[in-house]
């Protein structure tokens, strides 16, 4: 097995809260290779954004947040690097795009300044060269009249445009890994498809690895190569996009896939639902975390925690009964 670009091993992220310590990410292992898109899906509160931000160590480590495990990026364990080293990696080797482009852009600097900042900081280019690069980046992401746009402020451009600028900033230093946290959730579908196609073409051009965090299974199916499904801080299933959608093994994955309305086929069928809701992190079920909502849960599920098993073709699954409930999905073709 070759070296992965990013390999997360048994990562745990703890937060100290008023109501005690919570573990938002609880021992997850993942990897991303160059040129591939790993999707992380799950509902709100499942820890997908915390995972992303933990990789860049964006939470302040002043006793409130503590990490466990390993995050290996090109052979270096990021959790052991001093913060000065992390600063060199952030925005240079690993970049991140956030969901809300308006609050992630600085309103008092022009977009040009903001694209030039990482270039000058990391690549040590002069202001003139950085300016040239900024215009190139704006061209690359398909913003018309980049020479004028470069001097505009974030409030002067539309939401789709802002997200493009965010992408330009993230890609300015040609990162090896791009972490995109719900990059299109705030956008309209026609703009979403433009942005996703743009990310896709840049991935091919720059041979980046991408970690795409989303709750939209449509986006996953169309734009990703592998998927990790998270539930309450754990990865419960992982596999190739094709096999995961065709033959989801975990009852939670099945529930997710079945509960989205289909675009083809019978409309009059009732949507299947996952009963109940995600429990609070202060109140994690003892056995399998999904057991209280699972239609197949047995006494064993409630008592004992299943391990993450690795099956053939890199599929991983955390469920006691996946063999018996296989094929319970009615995914329309």
């Amino acid at each position, binding site marked *: 097995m070759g070296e992965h670009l990013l390999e997360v091993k048994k990562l745990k992220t703890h937060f100290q809260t008023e109501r005690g310590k919570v573990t938002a990410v609880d021992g997850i292992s993942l990897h991303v290779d160059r040129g591939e898109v790993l999707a992380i899906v799950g509902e709100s509160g499942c820890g997908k954004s915390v995972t992303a931000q933990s990789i860049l160590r964006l939470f302040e480590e002043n006793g409130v947040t503590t990490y466990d495990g390993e995050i290996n990026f090109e052979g270096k364990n990021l959790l052991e690097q001093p913060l000065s080293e992390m600063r060199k990696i952030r925005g240079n080797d690993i970049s991140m795009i956030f969901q809300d482009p308006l609050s992630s852009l600085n309103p008092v600097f022009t977009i040009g300044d903001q694209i030039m900042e990482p270039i000058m900081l990391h690549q040590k280019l002069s202001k003139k060269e950085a300016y040239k690069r900024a215009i190139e980046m704006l061209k690359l992401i398909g913003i018309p009249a980049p020479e004028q746009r470069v001097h505009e402020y974030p409030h002067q451009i539309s939401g789709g445009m802002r997200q493009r600028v965010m992408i330009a900033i993230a890609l300015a230093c040609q990162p090896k890994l791009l972490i995109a946290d719900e990059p299109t959730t705030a956008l309209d579908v026609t703009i979403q*498809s433009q942005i996703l*196609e743009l990310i896709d073409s840049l991935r091919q051009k720059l041979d980046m690895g991408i970690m795409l965090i989303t709750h939209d299974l449509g986006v996953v199916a169309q734009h990703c190569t592998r998927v990790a499904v998270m539930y309450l801080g754990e990865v419960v299933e992982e596999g190739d996009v094709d096999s995961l*959608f065709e033959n989801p093994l975990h009852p939670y994955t099945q529930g997710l896939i079945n*509960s989205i*309305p289909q*675009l083809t086929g019978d409309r009059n069928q*009732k949507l299947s639902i996952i009963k109940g*809701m995600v429990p609070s992190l202060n109140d994690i079920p003892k056995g399998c975390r999904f057991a209280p909502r699972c239609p197949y849960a047995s006494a064993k599920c409630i008592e004992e925690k299943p391990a993450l098993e690795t099956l053939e073709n890199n599929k991983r699954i955390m469920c006691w009964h996946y063999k018996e409930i296989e094929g319970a999905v009615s995914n329309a073709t």
Partner: protein
Amino acid sequence: MQHEAVKWEAQPESESARKKLLDIKGIKKYFPVKNSIGVTKKFVKAVDDVTFYLYEGETYGLVGESGCGKSTLGRTILRLTEPTEGEVFFGGKDIFKLSDLEFRKERQDLQMVFQDPYSSLNPRKRIGDSIAEPMVIHKIGNSHERMERVFDILEKVGLHPEAYYRFPHEFSGGQRQRIGLARALVVNPKLVICDEPVSALDVSIQSQIINLLEDLQEEFGLTYLFVAHDLSVVRHISDRIGVMYLGKMVEEAETDELFANPLHPYTQALLSSIPHPNPKMKQEKINLKGEIPSPINPPSGCTFHTRCPLATDICKQAVPKRVEKTPGHFVACHLQQ
């Protein structure tokens, strides 16, 4: 526009005598834009001459991208913002012509559910009081009867009776949306306008609320105007769908007809850009150029011509008329005239 509406008025029996609950004709809502010295020179044409109708007991889906005016349309029908022009007939009366007092009586039949379940509930009021409030306003029952009715409706929307004594912050998003529904339904309305009721919810919760909406519709014979941007949800729940772009209704048809045979280039692009939740379905995407123009200064002629892959000269000059291509399938596009 008006002409079309008249034509429909003349042959109401052809549609198997389905009763129209709400008939909306030429509705306009312009918001004034003041310049730096406070003089109004421009208008945002949020809703611009929209005509459609709702049959009794159906779900009408209103889709479009942000800023297309779909929410404003819903709010204008309920006169939450006063209309600029147009007529809305409900039970034979033009509700835009009613006085405030007269309209308040009608409001009992016309209710609304909002997108954000967090900001639509008073944080300092117990849930039971919030749900009972519409009954107080409409002077229904005494306090004991109202309380009983609230417990009744709580059960109908799938909440525990003890929710009555709790405060909004104790509930999750999905539960708050149930509370919003309960509050709308407590006065036995005929029409419920749902403004993006499931957009803020996770998929598993979303499907619970959609199923609940369907069950309640069956039980109480409700009519929904379902405003949303998620086409797969709209397809699932709607009987008919209207597609809006920059304040105009560009296409309208029965759900299956619209998905099978979209006529307007915008509808075609919109349908093709939904990512399909099945990796085996490789999509032919129609990628639109650019973004929605500003409604302050909408393009001349057909407002879609700046992004339309099929636009010709006439599209820049003349506003396309709304024509009925096949029964019930309306489209406003020069290519379809």
